[in-house]
């Protein structure tokens, strides 16, 4: 079998008329939503402890003590959940030459005419940015988070170190929230994307428009299909 370059095992054309392409298998989707869920819990509980104006959000988790208790555990959950996701996605998120051009012409992307741009694999530079930003920030957050986890590691690091950890943790948190917003927004703005994570498939048109190389590779595999 020819080596996959722009797709990963499991990606395949599902129907031909109209064309639908399977983009994420069930496991990956579940994995994504667990990660997303825990991120949202962390976001809400974290924001509650981050700014008084949002302290009311502790109500969602049964009060301040419960929120204080819950946040770090969900953090650990997020870390491992995302780690599994990472193992599946990291290869196709490695940067490629065409990403540079794509970024240079981000304006056209926003205008919606991607015809001028080079054809892309499964992910565009934007998606890759979000992937790597998430990866990096989650590592920073888990490390700094453990350093200030009062209940289990009260004496893990010195108080000055804890102060830095708090600062870094909150900065990283702001960053990851912004990343998250971008991620969600892009997913909505680019119509036809959400179903990739809900139903697992995208329309051929969507794939053609946004990830043509990916589609070509899968199409190629189709043709070489059972006939041979």
């Amino acid at each position: 079998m020819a080596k996959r370059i722009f797709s990963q095992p499991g990606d395949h054309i599902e129907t031909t008329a109209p064309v639908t392409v399977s983009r994420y298998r069930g496991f990956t989707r579940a994995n994504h939503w667990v990660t997303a869920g825990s991120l949202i819990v962390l976001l809400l509980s974290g924001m509650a402890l981050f700014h008084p104006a949002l302290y009311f959000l502790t109500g969602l988790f049964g009060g301040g003590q419960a929120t204080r208790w819950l946040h770090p555990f969900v953090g650990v959950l997020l870390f491992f959940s995302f780690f599994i996701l990472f193992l599946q996605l990291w290869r196709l998120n490695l940067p490629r030459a065409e990403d540079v051009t794509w970024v240079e012409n981000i304006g056209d992307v926003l205008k919606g005419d991607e015809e001028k741009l080079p054809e892309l694999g499964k992910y565009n530079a934007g998606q890759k940015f979000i992937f790597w930003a998430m990866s990096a920030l989650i590592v920073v957050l888990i490390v700094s988070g453990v350093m200030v986890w009062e209940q289990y590691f009260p004496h893990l690091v010195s108080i000055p170190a804890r102060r830095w950890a708090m600062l870094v943790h909150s900065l990283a948190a702001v960053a990851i929230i912004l990343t998250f917003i971008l991620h969600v927004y892009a997913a909505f703005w680019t119509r036809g994307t959400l179903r990739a994570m809900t139903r697992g498939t995208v329309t051929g048109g969507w794939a053609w428009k946004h990830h043509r190389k990916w589609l070509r590779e899968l199409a190629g595999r189709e043709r070489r299909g059972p006939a041979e």
Partner: protein
Amino acid sequence: MNIDLSRRGFLKLAGAGVAATSLGAMGFGEAEAAEQAHVRAFKLASMTETRNTCTYCSVACGILIYSKGDVAAGENAVITHIEGDADHPTNRGTLCPKGAALKDIVHSETRLTAPRIRRPGAAGFEEISWDEALDKIARALKDDRDANMVLTNDLGVPVNRWTTTGFLAASATTNETAWLTYKTVRAMGIVGFDNQARV
């Protein structure tokens, strides 16, 4: 079709976020403390206050003992707190680390609450009644005194000395207890009589 739906969903979510954050940033939706600021209820309110003297060294600091219930009124009284008596000329309300912790010597886990006896060779104490204990003691005293009282010396001088039973008196009991102790011990002729003055 589903695009429209998702548009509506999108608006809802984003709207909530904006509302929360922007309102918060503008200082609306001020957080409220669950509990109003308050200090601990003053624990001596409605206690009985009794004046006493610290039981330790002979600076003899004045102390105030606070209790639930009033012994003077014949009630059952549980001591809840002890602190210095500010009216006392010597200590002016101050107390040392021992005096300041007097309450916990009164309520010490190693306080004795019942008469006990350790029989010869036994590995432990067993409880006995006051009557049994006191009768045993009285009997032991009488027998030993009758057996070993020295009535006269070689010169026939009456000496009435009892040396085979000894008594170590306390150092923190009241003068009144001391006098009663003195009286009984001397009357019996005990000479092996001492107190803590030396140590």
